[in-house]
């Protein structure tokens, strides 16, 4: 028990001025573009417009359903709110080669990165995919959602619209 208390103290000791996770900036991790170039995740930006960050994998059915469903209306979403979707693949060496083929053959227009050893996934505390985050125009993470069921994309877009207008979000 002592160990646990000590460990919790270690972490909380530095959190004195911190609020909850909501409203934090995107943590710094290195991910790879599809052309192999390394990119630091803390540099993600969209000219003051909202960003959707979606963690997915080539072997994850619900993830691909969600990204397919968003793709159908993505052009409208971008036009209406300026939102950009960043898809982070957590595929390991077994299936990382399949990321580019899935993205292209599905015709997704997203910005796609590979997080091959899950550094960004751990930094964002994602354990199961799909896990979706919303980042506001100032680069703060303001909303997140785990799992996917039909219609989740509509709820997500309601939040994107609110964010684009500067309104408060519903969970």
């Amino acid at each position, binding site marked *: 028990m002592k*160990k*646990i208390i*000590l*460990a919790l103290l*270690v*972490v*909380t000791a*530095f*959190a*004195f001025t*911190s609020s*909850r*996770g909501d409203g*934090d*900036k995107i*943590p*710094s991790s290195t991910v790879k573009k599809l*052309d*192999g*170039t*390394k990119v630091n995740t803390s540099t993600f930006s969209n000219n003051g417009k909202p960003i959707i960050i979606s963690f997915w994998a080539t*072997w*994850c*059915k619900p993830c691909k359903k969600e990204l397919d469903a968003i793709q159908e209306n993505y052009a409208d979403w971008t036009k209406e709110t300026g939102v950009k979707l960043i898809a982070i693949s957590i595929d*390991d*060496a*077994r*299936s*990382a*080669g*399949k990321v*580019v*083929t*899935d*993205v*292209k*053959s*599905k*015709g997704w227009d997203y910005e796609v990165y590979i997080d*091959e*050893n*899950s*550094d960004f996934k*751990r*930094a964002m*505390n*994602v*354990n*199961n995919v799909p896990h979706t985050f919303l980042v506001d125009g100032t680069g703060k993470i303001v*909303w*997140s*959602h*785990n*799992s996917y*069921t*039909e*219609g*989740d994309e*509509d*709820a997500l877009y309601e939040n994107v619209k609110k964010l684009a207008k500067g309104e408060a979000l519903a969970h």
Partner: protein
Amino acid sequence: MFLTQKLPYFTLMQNKYFKSSLTATFLLILILNAFNIKAQSIADEANSVHGYFQIDAQYYKQDTLIGAPIVPEKMLSNAFGNINYTKGKFSAGVRYEAYNNVMQGFDPRYKGQGITNRFARYQDQLLDITIGNIYEQFGSGLIFRTYYEPGLLFDNSLDGIRVISNPVRGLTLKGVVGKQRTFFTVGPGIVRGFDGELNINEALDSMAANIKTKVIIGGSFVSKNQPDQNPDFVMPENVGAYSGRMNIIRGGFNFFAEYAQKENDPAAANNTTVGGKNYFSYQQGDAMFLSTSYATKGFSFLLQAKRIDNMSFRSDRDATLQNLLINFLPATTRQHTYLMPAFSPYATQPTGEVGGMAEMQFKVPKGSALGGKYGMDITLNASQANLLKPINIDDSTTTSKLYRTNYEEVGNELYHDFFIEITKKFTKKFKGTFMFANQFNNINIVQHNTPKGPYKNVLANIEVIDLTYKYKGNSAIRMELQGMQRDNKDTLNLGSWVVGLIEWTPNTHIFVAAIDQYNYGNPVENLRLHYVYFSAGYTSGPHRISLSYGKQRAGIFCVGGVCRTVPASNGFAISITSSF
């Protein structure tokens, strides 16, 4: 045998190890923090704290018919929590894990609770230093990959130091040293590794702006050290492994190749017992992984090949199963998510295998006769894995085993999977996925690691129909029908199955599902059972709770070619996950 010998040592080490290491971490964080405060720019950066919690618990009922054993504790639970703290360029984190006791299907050496991961990290443009538990991968992981997979309870993190540096644009250098986590302690061997990667286009900078071909090259060296305590044989105390890799990208083409070699490494994972006599293998190991693809909008092609010979690489020569692995050998077969195609999955054979996969995906365009109003996605996939064909060149004067293999010759078939998958949206509200697969599995080797075991090879035809109907905006009903036909006279492999699933999501927060797996083709008449399972869940933002009740068949659960067997169970389960 192994358990009773090792456990007292583990529990003894547990307290000592974590107390001292925790104090050290605490002090280091203090020092680093003091350093941060001096640098005003960092002190001004905002703090952030993130966390994740997961609790899984199950109440077990004995069920002799399906083979669910008596669980003396009646209820078992796995739980863990991560807390990460970030302040500008500094970050730190801990993970607490608790197994009271560990759930069925996991290694019982996960017993009790404690801090199993803690780290502190400072990173800027030039240098990135981490102390504590490190997750890192060199190339595709053929000689070094440490990672955490809670679904498998797999964690081979390196407890030590990692330094990453980008001295010039395009060049990344990494160095690691430490010991690996195993259960609640660390393994006996020291692991040291170095990796360099050069992105040639980035290094050439403006000169390369017009070059359309992108080239990335890399190389790694990893060595482990473990004292030799064998009274009879000379065990190499230092074992090195090296690898080189290349990635060439031009337009829609992508080519990746990696080749690795390992020095002789006699260990529990590659020795053989013949006539009660233990033969050590002083053989060298090597591995090759190739992946090439072409992708353009609406069409893609992927070709992968892999050859592995004696590449089990661990920081303890006595370790077996999934323990203390230093490297990662990916399986080049497709990981299925539907129940029946995933019934007999493939697991990488580190002692020797050769295999490959080819996949083609294309989109039938909208408006065409076949594509209809919304288009249609088609995937064709074929993968296969075979044994190598070793030729023994035994040294009869000593108890060591040597062999040679040729690249041209392959051994018996271990696995194949040929499938076609079609996804089509019929109307705005109605869509479906259809799959047909033909699979072969050498169960003795792939699942039981006993080449002369009692199981027969399994050949199966599998069909999947998955239909989703969406109504009233956010509500949906999903149905799955799956069938798997196999030899119904094969008593050890349970014969044919049919699966029905219905899932209702009245809104985006709630799901309710029922599933029936019916073993209608079981060779034993009174074992032709229905495995009925109900589940329901509630999701709100980052929080999720799910409840389930019913019978689950024995099965195999895999992530990335690493698998664990799950025994049959009957009972009530709850799972809660939450992140902030």
